[in-house]
């Protein structure tokens, strides 16, 4: 399928995009086939493209700038033995599984957008509209989360890759919040229940919010239609080209299998006592500071301290909540104030 330039040039005619429904497929294909598509899109060999996919198995996805060793819990990796992929887009570590359904846009400036964070907001209007048409009252929480009742139901990110812009995201049809929390590395085991509670509070799912999940066929139709309407293009069902399939096998997959790609070195740690900064959803996150013989933890909402905790260095030391009036909480509040906010 190809664009017909004469039609494109006709006044009032919407540009045509290709719709690729990869269906249920291996994690690497669900996550990264769009990177092979981006090359074709960037070269102008295929139209701008909307990809839909479901991963067939759980895996972990690191944001492009995140550190494999600092982000992921070694015990979780040992127990679960699931793939770890480094996406080319931004954002934080995500645990993904067959209960999460993906949408990915690859586009050029022409008929798409100029790229950058503004495109995220613009193209996420489609998934919001699709969710609402299916009974899920989602809304955008900037920069890129979709939320229901303030709880995250869709995480999204973007980037420029090989001459194309990419907006990628997915809906949580179900949410394994335990796995999401347990995949993340923490400096002390006593912090794990704290993180599990935070993830459970801030993350929801289609099933939890509505009581039932839509069938894939209905979901894909609603999503493709709404993304096309909001993006002002016409989606035409297509198939991957042989060049895209070849590039995926010969370049994309080997790169994602390369430990040097997966384990890119971390950014340098900023000076100070902050040892872990975990954004869970929007402004909500967990900060952990190194104290003298202890760790201090803060659950924050933007720059506001919600809860404060202390735990000693011993591996069996218990977590202690710091009350409103104590000096300990004031010290944690001071540390939070000196840390870049999630807001």
């Amino acid at each position: 399928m190809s664009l017909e330039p004469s039609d494109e040039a006709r006044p009032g005619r919407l540009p045509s995009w290709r719709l690729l429904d990869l269906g249920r497929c291996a994690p690497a294909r669900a996550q990264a086939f769009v990177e092979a598509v981006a090359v074709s899109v960037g070269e102008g060999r295929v139209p701008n493209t909307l990809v839909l996919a479901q991963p067939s198995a759980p895996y972990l996805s690191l944001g492009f700038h995140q550190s494999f060793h600092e982000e992921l819990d070694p015990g979780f990796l040992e127990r679960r033995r699931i793939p770890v992929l480094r996406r080319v887009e931004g954002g934080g570590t995500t645990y993904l599984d067959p209960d999460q359904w993906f949408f990915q846009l690859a586009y050029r400036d022409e008929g798409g957008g100029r790229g950058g964070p503004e495109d995220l907001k613009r193209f996420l209007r489609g998934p919001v509209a699709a969710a609402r048409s299916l009974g899920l009252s989602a809304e955008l929480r900037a920069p890129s989360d979709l939320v229901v009742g303030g709880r995250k139901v869709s995480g999204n990110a973007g980037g420029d890759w090989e001459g194309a812009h990419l907006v990628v995201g997915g809906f949580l049809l179900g949410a394994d919040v335990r796995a999401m929390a347990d995949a993340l590395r923490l400096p002390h085991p006593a912090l794990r229940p704290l993180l599990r509670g935070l993830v459970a509070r801030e993350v929801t799912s289609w099933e939890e919010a509505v009581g039932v999940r839509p069938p894939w066929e209905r979901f894909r139709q609603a999503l493709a239609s709404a993304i096309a309407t909001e993006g002002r293009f016409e989606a035409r069902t297509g198939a991957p080209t042989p060049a895209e399939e070849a590039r995926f096998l010969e370049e994309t997959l080997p790169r994602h299998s390369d430990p040097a790609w997966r384990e890119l070195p971390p950014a340098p740690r900023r000076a100070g006592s902050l040892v872990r900064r975990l954004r869970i959803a929007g402004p909500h996150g967990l900060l952990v500071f190194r104290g003298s013989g202890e760790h201090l933890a803060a659950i924050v909402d933007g720059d506001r301290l919600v809860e404060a905790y202390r735990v000693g260095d011993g591996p069996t030391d218990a977590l202690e909540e710091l009350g409103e009036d104590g000096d300990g909480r004031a010290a944690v509040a001071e540390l939070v104030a000196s840390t870049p906010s999630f807001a």
Partner: protein
Amino acid sequence: MTGAPQDPADAEACPVAPTLWLRLEADGTYRVGLTTTAARRAGAIVHYRGPVAGRAYAAREPAASLESEKWVEHLALPLPGTVVEVNPLPTADPGLLNRDPEGAGWLCRVLAGPTDGRAAPPSVPTGAPE
């Protein structure tokens, strides 16, 4: 390209990498940085990973990356060549790219050189932060 230092604003129109400026230095290398326009458009930059000193980069090969509001921009050098120096400051303080992209936030110096003329496929694109 002339022997005179280029104004970053002039270099902004470079068709290879419109987000970057370059300036010819006295030693024949090019200093490369992010344009003010690109820095503004990105918003608050929270991550930056620079190129590897001593490594040659082909045209269009990702050499550096920056992230703002969950958007990652992968930057190719505006001309193929070998990176002879990287500026460690924006790696340690990505916000510098917003505050002074055409001054203290320069990215690297490049010795322009011949390549095989082909765009390199993306590999492990960037190296260890300083």
